[in-house]
């Protein structure tokens, strides 16, 4: 069982909880951010990849003769050439925890059999990107097309072609998540509801795509700059694949222009560019363009669910059972945590008597998948909330009532679920008051008065609906994150962490946490992250984890630095520690003008040759902490929205959107609101706009922003955010993550509202996203039936 922490700090928080302006912003606002492509080293060469136009084919030959004749071209490499500097050509498996078959990961460059459109088969290096692209077009690759799988349901058919010829089955993995006697639950059920549901494949689409630059030209040391969410894992894989000692490899993540999951992976391109730099002895840079992002950066969320829910006479959930297919894509770069999160996340904030889900993780000739913002939890919430809406109609009770009857109550917290996480530890909902949040939001949006408003609107020929949904998200994934707090002899306060900033405001949040203990202002704290030379270990930015994990480490380290400063000052100022206070960078003796700066204390602790350090302290005014956790902090969201549906066009307009968030204690409410705005907007994209289409040849057909629609400002309403703070008991700050939380209940909320607007048509939406055309089809189908 996890340790419960006391969150009292001994003083009124000054910096934690404040809407501090972000320390990241001034340079970004002036256009002085330093993103990957802004780094311009002299002598840099530029790379372009040649990618497969086929979903499945054998490469017969690659002819680069014409390309190599083009002035400015330095090299064209295929798998064969790169192999000369690589230990192996195949990428190691990320998160190698679940028992999975061998030979499932992508290649640094594909040697023979291409398995999705966009897979890289060669790389051109030239003096400019323009020339590299010109040359890439001159490379003649002869392919022998093979039959392909475009849909994970097709993949399991008896005569389905193999996704990869090396793979004995298109089913990568089959697992079940189960507890209780689910068959008994169904045989005793008062009512059973059933649904076939699906969520669709979308991409992460940070506005800055991926990018990497590698330099091997100085002292045989490899320096790699990458727009990544995981600089330490990248270093490790570079070492493993290039056969280098860790001390000879430095990875730096510069300013990262958004990640949303797609940069939480070491990609073949990152290894290929480092290999090019080694072969050529010059810096080599590759910056992904948007067309490449559409066909080679990971995607998520394509799942097909057949599920049913057994309900008792009081609308209590007796059991849920069914099956789910998860479209894994052509390769498995990083385990199967996404379908696992979805499968274990269904019961979410609810008490469910028994559960049995069979999951097939299925390969297709499409872009590989790993988590995108939400990581399986949005799919889980979609399934659960859709079933509850259906049950509410079947049982004739209110949507709010059926939820209220089944939510885990505040008194039951911490609530241990019967489901285990992928490491085998039980899932524990640590804190929260779900029902209170539901009531708070429904009151705020005037749910009670909505029926009358809806009727009045209908009188004017307008169809409005109100929907709502719950979502929980496990945040703060361990095992640890590093945090070092250091004061320099000049009095500069620095934080070093293996966490990684990609736009969330991480540096500001950690600066606030540190500043709280050291009596300085957040803007005085320099946060260094993403650079493996300054920080030896770290896991990076994912799973809404950094405030919980890095925050806790920085908090505990800052407390130690504070204690040390007081101890030393007490000796030098000859005063009891109880009479000291730490303020504005000085330790002061209360009620006197005696003081000592943190810089002076730091200088003392750097030592003078031959002289002893102050008594009972170690050298340096600094401390490192690697706070560990085995459990997750579960954030909770309850969203409600009002929509208007145009029944002539199928268009959906969001009229109001209210969201409650329990992310425990808030370090900076302004940043948390911003995270929610972005997260909800991502969910709106998944509900109404973002559709990554593949045809029957597994050719992607939505590869521009004119075809794949991201939400823009005119589709998004002003969000009304309400906070409820239940401090997380299992970490020292009482915080929970937020980065992904906003996304989790959105599709379920909007679909519930659309259904509500279209009660006359008896519509129950089952497939996300719903475009105007799809919604109009639903409406017309129902009209034909009735």
């Amino acid at each position, binding site marked *: 069982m996890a340790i419960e922490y006391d969150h009292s700090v001994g003083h009124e928080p000054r910096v934690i909880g404040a809407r501090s302006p972000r320390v990241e912003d001034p340079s970004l606002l002036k256009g002085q951010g330093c993103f990957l492509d802004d780094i311009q080293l002299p002598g840099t060469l530029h790379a372009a990849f040649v990618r497969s136009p086929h979903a499945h084919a054998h490469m017969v030959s690659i002819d680069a003769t014409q390309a190599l004749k083009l002035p400015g071209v330095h090299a064209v490499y295929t798998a064969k050439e790169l192999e000369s500097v690589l230990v192996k050509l195949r990428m190691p498996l990320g998160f190698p925890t679940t028992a999975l078959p061998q030979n499932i990961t992508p290649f640094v460059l594909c040697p023979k059999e291409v398995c999705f459109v966009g897979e890289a088969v060669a790389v051109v290096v030239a003096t400019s990107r323009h020339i590299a692209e010109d040359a890439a077009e001159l490379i003649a690759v002869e392919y022998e097309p093979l039959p392909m799988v475009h849909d994970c349901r097709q993949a399991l058919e008896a005569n389905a072609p193999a996704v990869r010829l090396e793979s004995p089955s298109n089913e990568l993995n089959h697992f079940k998540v189960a507890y209780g006697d689910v068959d008994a639950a169904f045989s005793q059920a008062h009512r059973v509801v059933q649904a076939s549901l699906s969520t669709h494949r979308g991409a992460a*689409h940070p506005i800055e*795509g991926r990018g990497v630059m590698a330099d091997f030209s100085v002292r045989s040391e490899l320096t790699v700059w990458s727009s990544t969410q995981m600089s330490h894992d990248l270093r490790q894989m570079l070492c493993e694949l290039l056969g280098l000692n860790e001390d000879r490899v430095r990875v730096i993540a510069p300013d990262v*222009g958004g990640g949303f999951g797609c940069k939480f992976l070491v990609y073949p391109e990152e290894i290929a560019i480092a290999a090019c730099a080694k072969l050529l002895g010059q810096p080599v840079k590759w910056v992904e363009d*948007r*067309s490449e992002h559409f066909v080679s950066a990971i995607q998520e969320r394509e799942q097909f669910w057949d599920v049913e829910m057994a309900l008792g006479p009081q609308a209590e959930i007796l059991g849920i059972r069914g099956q789910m297919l998860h479209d894994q894509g052509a390769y498995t770069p990083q385990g199967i945590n996404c379908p696992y999160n979805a499968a274990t996340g269904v019961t979410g904030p609810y008490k469910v008597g028994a559960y049995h889900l069979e999951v097939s993780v299925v390969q297709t000739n499409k872009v590989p998948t790993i988590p995108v913002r939400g990581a399986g939890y949005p799919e889980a919430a979609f399934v659960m909330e859709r079933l509850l809406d259906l049950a509410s109609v079947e049982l004739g009770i209110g949507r709010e009532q059926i939820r209220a009857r089944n939510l885990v109550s505040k008194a039951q917290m911490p609530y241990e679920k019967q489901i285990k996480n992928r490491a085998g530890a039980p899932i524990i909902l640590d804190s929260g008051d779900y029902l209170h949040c539901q009531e708070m939001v429904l009151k705020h949006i005037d749910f009670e008065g909505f029926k009358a408003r809806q009727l009045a609107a209908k009188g004017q020929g307008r169809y409005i609906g109100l929907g709502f949904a719950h979502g929980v998200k496990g945040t703060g994934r361990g095992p640890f994150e590093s945090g070092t707090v250091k004061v320099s002899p000049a009095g500069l306060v620095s934080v070093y962490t293996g966490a990684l900033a990609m736009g969330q405001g991480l540096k500001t949040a950690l600066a606030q946490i540190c500043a709280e203990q050291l009596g300085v202002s957040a803007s005085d704290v320099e946060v260094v992250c993403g650079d493996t030379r300054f920080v030896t270990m770290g896991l990076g930015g994912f799973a809404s984890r950094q405030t919980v994990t890095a925050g806790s480490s920085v908090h505990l380290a800052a407390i130690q630095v504070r204690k040390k400063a007081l101890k030393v000052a007490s000796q030098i100022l000859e005063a009891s520690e109880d009479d000291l206070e730490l303020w504005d960078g000085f330790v002061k003796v209360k009620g006197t003008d005696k003081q000592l700066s943190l810089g002076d204390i730091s200088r003392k602790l750097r030592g003078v040759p031959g002289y002893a350090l102050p008594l009972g302290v170690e050298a340096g005014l600094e401390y490192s902490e690697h706070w560990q956790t085995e459990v997750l902090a579960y954030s909770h969201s309850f969203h409600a929205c009002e929509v208007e549906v145009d029944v002539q066009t199928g268009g959906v307009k969001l009229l109001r959107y209210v969201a409650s968030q329990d992310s425990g204690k808030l370090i900076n409410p302004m940043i948390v*609101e*911003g995270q929610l705005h972005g997260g909800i907007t991502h969910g709106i994209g998944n509900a109404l706009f973002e559709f990554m289409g593949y045809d029957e040849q597994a050719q992607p057909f939505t590869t521009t922003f004119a075809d794949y629609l*991201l939400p823009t*400002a*005119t589709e998004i309403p002003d969000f009304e955010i309400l906070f409820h703070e239940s401090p997380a008991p299992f970490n020292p700050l009482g915080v929970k993550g937020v980065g992904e939380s906003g996304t989790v209940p959105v599709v379920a909320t909007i679909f519930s509202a659309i259904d509500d607007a279209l009660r006359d048509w008896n519509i129950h939406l089952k497939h996300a996203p719903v475009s105007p055309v799809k919604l109009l089809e639903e409406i017309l189908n129902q009209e034909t039936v009735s």
Partner: protein
Amino acid sequence: MSSNPVKTIAFNLNGQNVQEDIQSRLNLADFLRQQCHLTGTHVGCEHGVCGACTVLVEGRAVRACLMLAVQVDQKNVITVEGITPERGLSILQESFWSEHGLQCGFCTPGVLISLTQLLKDHASPSPEQIRDVLSGHLCRCTGYQNMVKACMVAAKRMRDEPSNALAPVLHEVKDGH
């Protein structure tokens, strides 16, 4: 793909007269970033949708990825560097800071440029007008709401403090029209 002819262009960049030899096929975004070393203009999609590369040409917001550099011959070009005062931040930039109108900051320079044009044309834009202008930009982080708020705050401050309203270089452009 041919011999990539070179052409000399002369134009005004952020208030400075500049003459450069450029390849005819070079787009304005690549030219500004790679040849003029003004890396504040970002490239997000290279097909004219995301708006990250937006700059002002003759005072109008354009997508630098859809314009050839040769097309700015004899014209005025303003990038995010040109709307940034020598010290500190402009009112619009400050408002984005105080209202949390940015997160990763990659789309921000283009957004600031478009809103600069909006605020030049409309002293009191409505939230709907602002959203309309922002609809030409993709942002994956903010959900746009705080950008709208920041622009409203900036517009009010500019009305209240007209002398600080626009960075000096913009006054010159404005006067020229």
